[in-house]
Structure formats: C-alpha cells, structure tokens
C-alpha cells in the first residue's frame, strides 16, 4: 500500500535560498522532477536582507525579499514543488535517498544540499537569556528599537562593519568590539567606518558577559585578549555579527565536513557521496554571496542531471 503512494523525485533540494532555488530551476528545466524542502519561507539569508547592492542586473539594488519571490515564481513556472517543512533526518547512502520531515518521508534519486548557515552565537553568559531583549543578530531589523541609545556591535567582518555604519546613523554611540587588532571587513567598508564620529573601536577585546537589568540588556563586560583586563560598557543592545555556522547537523556522519562544519564538495558540488551534491553557503568555499550561491546551484543541478543520466 505504502509503496503505491510513494513518489520518488529525481531531485530533492534541501533549502530554498538562492543556491537551492537556482538548483531547483536548473534541474526542473533539465526535465527532472524536483521537490524543494524548506523549514521557513524561501529566501534564506537573501530573503532577510533589506537591500542587495552587489547582485548584477539591479543598478538601484534589489530587496532580498523581492528577489526571493521572483526566483520562487520562476521555479514554480517550471514545475518545481515546494514542501514547507524542515529536514529532520535522512539516509543519503540508500537508493533512492530517504528524507524525513516531521510530517512525512520523501524519496529522491539525487539530493542537492543547500541548507545555508545561521548566525554564530557568542556563547557567553546572558546571551540566551537576553535574546530579543537587547541581544540581536539582525541590526537592520532591531536597530530602530534603540534609536538614540548606546549600542555594542561584536565582530570585525563586513556584516559587523555594515551593522556599525547603519547603527551609527540612528544611535547615540556604537561600540565596536573585535577580538583582533584590525577589522576583516573590505577596504571600502573600513574607509567608511573610520570616518564616523560616534563609532568607538575596542580592538583586541572579546565579550565576556552580557549584563541585564530589569529583563533587558544594560551593558557588556569586555576583556582584553592580551592583558586580560576587563571593562564594562553600558549599552542598551548588543548586535552580534561574528560569522555564520553551516546548517549541517542533520548530515553529520553522512557527508564529508570540514573543521567549520561546511560540506566538502568540488566546484560541481560533488560531495563524494554518490548522488549527493552541495551548493551555496553550506559548501566549503571562499566567497559567500548571492552571486556565488546562484553559480553553485546551477553547477550542482547540472552535475545531478549528469549523474542521474549515467
């Protein structure tokens, strides 16, 4: 009975960010039956980005949400099916491959892993308790609640720099805390941030604790990585921008992962596990952008189609 009801897709794509949506589009256009699994709404980090200025073809920039909707519509036009459920467990070694959500089991001959990543936590006392109470991982979402207040940004990459620049326009002061002696952000971002009067740099410092008062953030205690000296910065919010963690827990033991937890795969997305390909931010690679995610998605779909035909 169950056998009769069972559908086996040619390709299952896990994750509906730009890599997953592009992989689905290319696979569907190659004549394959395609299902996309996504726990949240499509878009991933792209969908959450207010304006994207570096995706070619949009001289005025494009809202990540609008770009997501366009990509999804394009997928739907070519027959891609969407299942709004997250992957809970899977067996990638069997044929066809088994993918379980909380509600159902899906089967597919090939799988494209495009699960992206999520914001890394600081893992310090106070962070979990005060999440949503001044601890935030999205400056553009929550910055407005701290208009005219003093805030802290933690991190030294492009996201941290962009967050600090954005917050400097609406907040009284921005304290940028970074564990190294220089920012990792691009030269352009560094030049922009150096000229801002109300950004205070705390280099070679890490956050030790996030302090709260009356159920909301009241400050952070930072520690000098060289001297061990501590200092408290009174602040109403802490914006954490210390990188991303790949979403690969569900594939542990089944796919080759690097030290950071990213899937090891070559440029075609091949993981070494037959019929399983990786695309987008989840793949071990240098540059993580919408533009590179889209390229990964196309390559992985092409490789999956070739593998299915062989």
């Amino acid at each position, binding site marked *: 009975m169950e056998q009769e009801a069972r559908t086996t897709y040619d390709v299952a794509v896990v994750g509906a960010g730009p890599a997953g949506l592009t992989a689905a589009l290319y696979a569907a256009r190659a004549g394959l039956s395609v299902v996309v699994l996504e*726990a949240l*709404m499509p878009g991933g980090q792209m969908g*959450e980005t207010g304006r994207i200025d570096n995706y070619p073809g949009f001289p005025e920039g494009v*809202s990540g949400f609008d770009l997501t909707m366009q990509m999804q519509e394009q997928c739907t036009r070519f027959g891609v099916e969407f299942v709004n459920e997250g992957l809970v467990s899977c067996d990638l070694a069997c044929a066809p491959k088994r993918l379980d959500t909380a509600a159902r089991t899906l089967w597919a001959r090939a799988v494209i892993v495009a699960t992206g990543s999520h914001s890394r936590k600081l893992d310090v006392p106070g962070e979990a308790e005060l*999440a*949503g109470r001044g601890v935030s991982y999205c400056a553009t979402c*929550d910055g407005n609640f701290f208009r005219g207040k003093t805030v802290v940004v933690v991190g030294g990459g492009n996201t941290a720099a962009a967050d600090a620049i954005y917050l400097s326009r609406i907040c009284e002061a921005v304290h940028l805390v970074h564990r190294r002696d220089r920012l990792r952000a691009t030269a352009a971002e560094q030049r922009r941030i150096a000229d801002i009067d109300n950004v205070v740099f705390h280099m070679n410092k890490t956050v030790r604790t996030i302090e709260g008062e009356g159920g909301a953030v009241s400050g952070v205690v930072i520690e000098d990585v060289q001297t061990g000296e501590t200092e408290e910065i009174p602040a109403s919010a802490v914006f954490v921008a210390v990188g991303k963690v790949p979403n690969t827990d569900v594939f542990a033991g089944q796919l080759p992962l690097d030290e950071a937890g990213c899937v090891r795969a070559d440029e075609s997305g091949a993981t070494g596990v037959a019929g399983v390909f990786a695309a987008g931010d989840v793949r071990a690679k240098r540059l993580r952008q919408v533009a590179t995610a889209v390229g990964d998605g196309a390559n992985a779909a092409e490789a999956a189609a070739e593998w299915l035909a062989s």
Partner: protein
Amino acid sequence: MATQITAAEFDEKVLKADKPVLVDFFATWCGPCKMMAPTIDQIATEVKGTADVYKIDVDQAPEIAQRYGVMSIPTLIVFDKGEVKNQAVGAQPKPAVMALFD
C-alpha cells in the same frame, strides 16, 4: 489573511478577546518579518473560529510594542484572557508558531 490592527484596537481585539489571539509584531522594512508573513496568513486561515490572528506594525504602534517589551522583530505573542501565554522572537517554522497556542 491576518488582519492588521491599530494601537487603539489592541485592548478590544486582543486583551478582551474570548479566544486565544496570536499577534505578529512586525515592521514594513524588516526582512524576516516579510518572510514570516505568508506563514502567519496561513495560520490565520487554519485557526479561524478557535483563535484570532492579528498583525501590529511596531512603527505605527510603538506604545504597544513597548508595553510588551518587544525589542526584536518579528516577535510573535499568543495572548489568552488578556495575558501573555507564549512568545517567540525571530522567523519561526510554522509548527513552532502553532506550538505557541499550546
């Protein structure tokens, strides 16, 4: 579809409701809020009759957001008999939102 309400309607529609009410605190410029919107609309349709679902724009109703300590959006709060029953911060999968009613 989840209906958007104003600060003036909040007490009547949410606190004095005779059934549980899910409120989505959002802003028009917030990406994760936009991503949550279709899920919130789906839930509004599914729970119709047993619960109400409303959206509040935090820019239009900052006093309501402040009253419930909303400092991050989207914030989803289920009210029951005028009290906060459960809440969640950030974009959530649908089952996690439905669990706020339990």
